[in-house]
């Protein structure tokens, strides 16, 4: 059986890629995908621990995360569409109206 550390390492790597993506990419869609990547990294960790401890709590949490992610995608994509309609761009560097 593959030790749990391997899964955790995978999870950490995926999370790191996702976080980096959120910080460095400018396309809102890509940032979004990166967020999904982070969520799924968490899911991997949940499932790995569930297996490790032989309990189902982790897997139930994964289902919750998936639900939240779906809702987030629905709201987020709607916002991106709305932003694109008003500004003809989804480059987040151009969205600096809140600058003080």
């Amino acid at each position: 059986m593959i030790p749990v550390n391997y899964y955790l390492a995978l999870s950490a790597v995926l999370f790191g890629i996702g976080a980096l993506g959120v910080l460095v990419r400018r396309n809102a869609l890509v940032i979004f995908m990166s967020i999904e990547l982070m969520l799924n990294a968490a899911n991997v960790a949940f499932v790995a621990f569930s297996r490790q401890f032989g309990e189902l709590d982790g897997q139930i949490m994964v289902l919750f995360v998936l639900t939240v992610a779906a809702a987030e995608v629905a709201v987020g994509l709607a916002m991106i569409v709305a932003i694109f309609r008003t500004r003809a761009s989804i480059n987040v560097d151009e969205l600096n109206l809140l600058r003080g």
Partner: protein
Amino acid sequence: MFELAPLVLAFPIAGVLLNLLFGRYLNERWISIIGVAAVGGAFGVAVLQALALAGSGYHAHLALLANWIEVGQLQAPWQLRVDTLSVTMMLLVTGVGMLIHIYASGYMHGDARFARFFIYLNLFITAMLVLVGGDNYLMLFVGWEGVGLCSFLLIGFWYDAGEPSASARVGGEPQAGAGNARAGRKAFVVNRIGDFGLLLAMFMIFWRVGSLQFDAVADYFSVQGAAAGGLATVITLLLLVGVCGKSAQIPLFVWLPDAMAGPTPVSALIHAATMVTAGIYLVARSAVMFELAPVSQMVVALVGATTAFMAGTIALAQYDIKRVLAYSTISQLGFMVAAVGLGGYVAGMFHLLTHAFFKALLFLSAGSVIHGVEHGAHATHAHVDVQDMRVMGGLRSKMPVTFWVYLIGALALAGVFPLAGFWSKDEILADAWHVGMVEGHWHGVLVYVLLALAALSTALYMTRQIILVFFGAPRSEAAAHAHESAPLMTAPLVVLALLSVLGGLLNLPGWHALGTWLEHTHEFFQTGAFNALVAGISTLVALAGIGLGYRVYFLAPRTTADAADALQPALGPMFGFLRGKWFVDELYDAVIVRPFERGARSLAFALDWNFWHDGFHNSVLAAGFRMLAAFLSGPVDKTVIDRLFDALAGAVRVVGSRNLQRLQTGYVRNYALGVVLGVVAVMGYFVSRSI
């Protein structure tokens, strides 16, 4: 039947409340029915009480209504005292009161304040019944003040009419047409002086006796006897001050003539028959104390006799029909006060009763005359003073009923045999004779002489009045067109005339019904012996007065309204002196009223306005406040507090806009980086702690 006693108060109170609440929705008929029924009910109750007394051995009965004041030693309950003295007064107040209420429903017809008049009258009856029915001095005082209040309200009933101010002394503006209101105020203020004496007497009683109940006071003084003579003298002299105020004796009599500004039924009820006799009732009620204080008795007798004489002479020279009767009332009250001062309590009470009959009769008849002349003045559009006897004359044929009852009243007042006034006045004179001639006290002789002279003037001024009003030819258009008053007014007059004729039966020599009746209240309420010599002299005096009046006024009748009085040549300057009412009003004006007003004005202007307002208030209080306010708003507020907050706000602005502003780049990345760094920092903290 004693348990019905509280109803004697309940009836008039109900009358007050009914007319107060519903009077505005009722017409005159119902208002007067309520008013008369209230007093009539009380009269019925009083009659029942008298019967109950007669049926139970004449013992005083106490009826507790409610507890009132219970503070330490002071126990003053609302308690009615039913004894022969109080029932006599109750019968008088409600009986004569009822007749006057009936008369008033005709007299006040058409008055805009009809309901209010009956409310006041019923309120007066209530207060008077509290006065005579109370079982302690405090209840008596409540009633005493209550009747004073009603008197004030009713004198000023037509408060928007009356003489304009004689001089514009008060405050610059002449007070036009407020004479009646001023008369009411005068009565109120003068009465307050008397009430002051009564209050002090009550304090003294409570201080030494420890109770204000009549029985307790009587017991204390009967037990102490002569040892309490000094105390009794002080208390009774203070009581005398109260008596002088309420019963219009020297020196406080000046309010009563002015009180004639009220409607005539008021003059008859309050200022002749009932309220002014409260002083005599007070003396009779406090008889135990007066018996221990011969000095007070002498003072009381002399005050009464002097008042009787003085007022009798003033009445000789008055032209106002009601004013003559007012001075006559003062004079007759003097008779009563003199009587109770001489120890003749029964004589005083007897005269009180008969005087109530014939003086109420005279006042109401005078009201009828005024009513008739007013009618005549109205019909002919003549402008005359309808109370001035100089413009009357010849009313005998125009107002026959009024004439006859007036004549009966006048003869009764003059003391002509066998009318009521003869018996009662004679009893007083006999008492004075007894004290002076038999017991040999000098003041008895003096009192007798003064009272005899007063009786002479009584006969003279009543003859003068009858002749001026009813005989000769009419001296004005108004008098020529006068006519008889309505039956509603004349019916009570006839009843009162009957009482004036028969009133003497109450205490006829040899029978002494009133004397034996009152004897059950105090054992020394005794009727003096009948004295044929005194009676003869009295009759001669009365006839002399009438004859003199006949000779002076009838044989040389006044022909025009502005002719000089027939007595004027004979009296010379004395007539002016009497016409000016011994100038007592002027004396009080000069000695009391004007210095008081001057003092008040100088206090108002010099102290209050100039010193207090202009000086202290403006330059100290207002200026000081202004300085304090200027200091607080200038240096403190504008300089310190404002600058502090300006600086604080400036600092916030500098920090916020110049430095923190730069953090807000608007780039999502930057914020996300902030979140990541934060997470890293927190995790780093926990990791470092776990290691």
